[in-house]
């Protein structure tokens, strides 16, 4: 079986890249950090956009990152089916880029939230969830100020109709429309979610619900 190679895009201001890399290498993947000015993604089986504050979140989260040189190649490969996962700030970058619909606005309580969230698996047809069981729950930390998912009515209807909502909050913490915590693209290969699965992969504390999301991704590309 081939060792999957996962690219992790690093923008100035990204900060979760090392955490994602630690979990992925622990699961047997090979990790390659892609600085935002690079454009060669040819050796990669999947790409993750990690959490953080790309370009300082200036203007609004993801608004400047979409213009980083790496993004045009990423968009073109995503359109040809490369699995792409955006976590937290990465999700925000994906919506700004247009790879995923909608937008992430400030939390309804206008406060940063770093806490545990229980998520219901709403679709298992995605690179991150195909190893999970529909309707079950996983517990993952959230860590964001702008995680309140919103979109127009037609988009929401389409997301619902095509089962593109992959995670819903059991107890909506941030005001997201339809309790959306994660969605996928129409082709289903691009996934964005606000919670941090890499923060729930710790054998010492026993918070390990995030591991199954990464193993889903790795078995898909292996």
């Amino acid at each position: 079986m081939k060792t999957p190679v996962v690219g992790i895009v690093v923008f100035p201001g990204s900060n979760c890249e090392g955490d994602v890399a630690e979990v992925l290498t622990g699961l047997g993947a090979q990790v390659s950090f892609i600085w935002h000015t690079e454009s060669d993604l040819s050796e990669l089986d999947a790409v993750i956009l990690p959490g953080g504050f790309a370009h300082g979140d200036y203007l609004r989260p993801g608004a400047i990152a979409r213009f980083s040189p790496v993004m045009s190649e990423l968009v073109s490969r995503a359109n040809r089916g490369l699995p792409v996962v955006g976590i937290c700030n990465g999700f925000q970058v994906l919506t700004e880029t247009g790879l995923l619909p909608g937008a992430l606005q400030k939390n309804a309580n206008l406060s940063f939230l770093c806490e545990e969230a229980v998520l219901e698996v709403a679709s298992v047809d995605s690179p991150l969830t195909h190893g999970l069981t529909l309707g079950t729950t996983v517990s993952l930390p959230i860590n964001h100020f702008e995680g309140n998912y919103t979109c127009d009515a037609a988009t929401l209807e389409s997301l619902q109709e095509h089962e593109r909502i992959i995670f819903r909050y059991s107890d909506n913490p941030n005001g997201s429309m339809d309790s959306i915590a994660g969605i996928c693209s129409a082709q289903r290969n691009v996934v964005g979610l606000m919670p941090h699965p890499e923060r729930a992969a710790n054998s010492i504390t026993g918070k390990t619900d995030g591991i199954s999301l990464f193993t889903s991704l790795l078995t898909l590309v292996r």
Partner: protein
Amino acid sequence: MDPDLYRSLGLTDDEYDAICALLGREPNHLELAMYSVMWSEHCSYKSSRRHLRRLPTSGPTVIMGPGENAGVVDAGDGFAVAIRMESHNHPSAIEPYQGAATGVGGILRDIFTVGARPIALLDSLWMGPQNEPRSSWIFRGVVSGISGYGNAVGVPTVGGEISFEPCFRGNPLVNVAAIGIAPIDRLIRAQATGVGNLVVLLGSKTGRDGIGGVSVLASAGLGQVEDDAKRPSVQVGDPFEEKKLIEACLSMLDRQLIVGIQDLGGAGLTCATSETASKGGTGMVIYVDTVPTREPQMEPLEIMTSESQERMLAIAEPSKLEELLQLADRYEIEATVIGEVVSPEEAFGYAEVGVLRIYSTRGGELLAEVPARSLADDAPLYDRPIAPPADLGEMRSREPRLGGDWSTIQAFLTETYFDPEWIYRQYDHQLFLNTLVGPGADAALLRVAAPGVGSSSSALGVSVDGNPRWCTVDPYLGAIATVAESALNVASVGADPVCIVDCLNYGNPTHPEVMWQLSQGIDGLAHACDVLGLAVVGGNVSLYNEENGIDIEPTPTVTTLGFRKLPTMLRPYLAQAHDPIFYLGTVPSSLSGSALARFADPKAKGSLFEIDLDHQKRLIAATARYVRSNEDGEIGLVRTIGRGGVAALAASVVRRYGVGVEIFSEFSTLEKLFGEAPTGVVVIGGNGPMLRSIAQSFDLTLMEIGRCVDQSLVVFDGLGSLSVAGEPVTPR
């Protein structure tokens, strides 16, 4: 020179005369400005330095102690842990968000200045009553500032403490501690060595913000009408710039492109240039026109004293410059050569020392010429008058009284309850995956690991603690108790404490009682650290904490660091009905200094409990040993005594786990329940036989003081019971 000029910069007549004597002439305006910031209380520690010498600063694991940018201890496996603590009280009083944010930024720069990657922040916040709009505005602003800067710069805030007292109404305390991890061989000192080496300014452009921050703001009291006019002296922070600076500097250190590095904090370029030259024993030449500025036509004086944030001064060999500039370009930070290191020389009567010369341009006009050491190290040391308060005896003769009023106790446990989760849910406390025990516990437990550095086989425990209620009753015993509590907190996550850093927050040093409090506090810290075997590896002194001439209560805060083997399994214990409740250690015997006494009888002080430090040392060792035994089985919930004593702890267990707590009648006296002597540990559930055996081998008393019950009430047998339902205090 017109005395009004130097007085307006915060210099006294004697200090001005000393400058003239050092230079053999009158200083010009630029030189005067440079002395005024470097000789400020904030930079020179001129009132406290004499007393600080009494602190024990060495220990078997200490790699760097006070005087460096951060304390550094050996964590084993080739890893070093850097730790540093600082106050940002005055800026936070004037502009809470930016004051707290730049406090975070400044402390992080101290950590990566020694070559360590910052991995954690903790904060100690002391605020005014939250039913007052201004105190609430300050508190909200401070928490937002720490959240906004800390989260974006990518360093998790893993612990802290919060309390509300009337004396912090106009002058809050915002003390921030930071921890970093480095491979031992990447550590670097802040010195300018190598004649001919280049002085490179990294990071932000220099602006007009923060001019005179250390002298006008940090070294004078608050409460005057012109406080609002001081707002331009508060710097403005940019966490994104700092994040880029961290990555660029650590990368430069990894590639060995720089020989020395210093952050620009208080007193800006003047401080960084004179300190690095003084430490390196060299001279330095700076060309002010090369310094990138935010605005045109900035005066040399403004450039040399600006406290614009997110700047670093690096010393590099000329052959490494090109690679350094390339790295700076990659990380999108500015890097500019602004001067060079020159030979020491015979000048100003300083044999063989370095002179700092500031030129307008290369080959241009000489604007300032001063011995570097005279700025950095030769500020006058004051032996300020010391006197205990006149009414000390009378004050201590009256013990706090409560009478038998149960409703007061009920009100104390419910009305003053604040849930710190309101704070820490606004902080990223998980980044880097190191947080094994996070905020909300008595101490944080972290992996000793960092991106780019790797992970070691050990974990670190850390806790930040202060207590003005104790220290105002007895500044000496209160300081001892502060260290005793903090070290015990670290033990409560299984770590053996090894060192502390401190922030000494006191009032106006020209008040003899304040100097007495400071001196007593330092003696207390020194004694406690001596007996407990803790090195003081760094610290900061914040004086002039006063409002309208009223000093704050003395508040030394300490951050204690300890180590243990990395646990293989750690599960939070959920208290449940029928769990036994044990008390290990000695029981509080007085209410003096307690939060209940403050609530019910605020005028009475009484005599503060005295801690038997030999007993404390055994208790710390026994607690750490017991907690580490979790590898062999269940240890239950291990908690130390904090604000409100065993009673508040019981209430918190009821709130958190939904069980009830019954405390047996033998323990149900007000002193035992509400006394706060940090000389005991409460264990709920857990391994009774193991506890008994450890108590015996460390010669400690163990008693069963109660049990968890079904009905969710706090019951004190023989005294009464109460419900703890109700909303916690929140800022308006």
